[in-house]
């Protein structure tokens, strides 16, 4: 009896003292066949109101200087949070960036962000687009001033974080929370993994080819090691993008770019860090016949990949099983209509 009372009292007191501790926390859910996450949830425990606040911020152009560009402008849910129709990202004042906006999903398993790994943590990622001249051309400090004067945000921060204080940490962690919920695990591949369906003969043939030619850099179930590699693309002389080397300054990192996941490929065209390939046929042809040798070329690509036209069709069939229609059309991740 005493113990129960003590426990209850302690809980109430802790809740009063710590504020947010009493808010319901959520378990981060993902399939059993996925590996351990790399995001440290203990430093940013998921909560419904924080996720919702992050979602609202993600879709709100209030983050950009002239309130025209939101995160979703370049990371649209219908493209698995990538950007179609532009090889290079399209930002504020019709400015064009230098890289293809990557798809956003399964971020809890990624250790670095940006094509060159310039950003070392999901929490810090949003700083880059907010302040980049060609993207949102604003600053976190100015974003906060704007949110403080907003009719709804102070209340949303109160609900999510226990008081109305709007800090850089809270803005960034709320954005992380929403983005962490972008888990893609409902493609045909996943239903096969769960024993709910089977690959067709063509898809199975494609899987065999995939395993021998692609899976070293794009292993299941995330379909990327999320490491860096030089995949033999000729350098674009208008961009002169050296990739990872621009961060590490090491010559062995020249022309290495972050390996993207192959999940949701059909939604995330165009492809590669500079969006040079408009469709998957061009991508497969690149790996079959377009590899440009160089000192840092990935070891797996140093021997030519031989694919006949049937192989290409089979491989393509397998890659299509990685499209997660459920993820792309999930209203939970979509524009927060109820907020307006």
């Amino acid at each position, binding site marked *: 009896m*005493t113990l129960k*009372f*003590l426990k209850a*009292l*302690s809980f109430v*007191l*802790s809740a009063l*003292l*710590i504020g947010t501790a009493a808010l319901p926390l959520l378990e981060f859910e993902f399939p059993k066949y996925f590996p351990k996450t790399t995001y*440290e949830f203990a*430093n*940013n425990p998921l909560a419904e109101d924080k996720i919702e606040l992050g979602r609202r911020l993600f879709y709100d152009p209030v983050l950009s200087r002239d309130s025209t560009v939101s995160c979703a402008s370049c990371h649209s849910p219908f493209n698995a949070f990538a950007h179609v129709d532009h090889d290079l990202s399209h930002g504020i004042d019709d400015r064009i960036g230098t890289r293809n906006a990557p798809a956003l999903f399964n971020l809890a398993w990624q250790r670095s962000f940006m094509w060159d790994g*310039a*950003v*070392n*943590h*999901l*929490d*810090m990622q949003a*700083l*880059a687009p*907010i*302040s*980049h001249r060609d993207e949102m051309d604003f600053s*976190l*400090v100015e974003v*906060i001033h704007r949110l403080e004067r907003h009719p709804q945000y102070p209340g949303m921060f109160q609900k999510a974080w226990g008081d109305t204080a709007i*800090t*850089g*940490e*809270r803005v*960034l*962690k709320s954005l*992380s929370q929403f983005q962490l919920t972008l888990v893609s695990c409902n493609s045909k591949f996943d239903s096969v993994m769960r024993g709910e369906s089977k690959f067709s003969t063509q898809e199975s043939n494609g899987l065999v080819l995939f395993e021998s030619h692609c899976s070293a850099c794009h292993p299941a179930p995330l379909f990327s090691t999320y490491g860096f590699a030089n995949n033999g693309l000729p350098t674009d002389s208008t961009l002169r993008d050296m990739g990872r080397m621009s*961060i590490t*300054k090491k010559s062995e990192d020249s022309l290495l770019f972050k390996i993207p996941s192959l999940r949701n490929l059909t939604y995330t065209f165009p492809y590669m860090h500079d969006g040079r390939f408009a469709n998957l046929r061009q991508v497969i042809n690149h790996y079959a016949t377009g590899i440009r040798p160089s000192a840092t070329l990935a070891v797996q690509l140093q021997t030519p990949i031989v694919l006949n036209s049937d192989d290409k069709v089979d491989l393509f069939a397998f890659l299509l099983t990685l499209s997660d229609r459920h993820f792309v059309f999930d209203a939970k991740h979509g524009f927060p209509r109820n907020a307006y």
Partner: protein
Amino acid sequence: MRVGFLKNAVLALVLAFSGREIVMGQSVDYELEFKAWWGEDKLQLKHAYHHQGQTLQLDRFLFYLSGLDLLRRGEVVASIPESRHLFDFEDTTTHHWKFSLPKPIKFDAIRFHLGIDSLTQVSGAYGGVLDPTSGMYWAWQSGFINVKIEGESTLCSTRQNKFKFHLGGYFAPFNTLQVLEFESKRGKLPTIFVDLRRYFSALDLMTTNEVMSPSKTSVSLARQVKNSFFVRP
């Protein structure tokens, strides 16, 4: 009954605070004072100093400190958990690094980092002095700016003769983190001086005046900032 309830309430309070290591009545508060100088004088911002035959003016001077340890005979006797401080010359309230110990302890030296350690650098968003709104975090590439020195000098042929030193970088070979250690005689904390004339005397402003990313130069400049710290005997 009433006494029992009070006892429970006190116990509950202790439970609620148990993660914070608050020992009532015994904790000791400390203040480590930092003074910025230019040669023999107190530093002044927006003041035209004569330097190498030209003028030099400082507009901003900030640095991070972290990882404070107290030592006795070369051994660490206390580590101040999550000790981080942002010195901003313009804000005199930041000229004292305040910390407390749960109980009095004997020590004869203090040691701390000039800059933010690599674990904190890769652990996501923090609040307080580490909040990116402090202006000491890079947006385009992750990492804290460990030291920020900005100003103008006629030695610089840059736009408006400005110089900018944003010294950061946390991974090899461009790790700018520096370690500072000072004697603390009879457990009394020394006043720590940083003389920016020493920093500028060791560099050629005509050729090195805009350093804003991790590089070999930022590492050597961070070392020069470290060498500008001293205590008076």
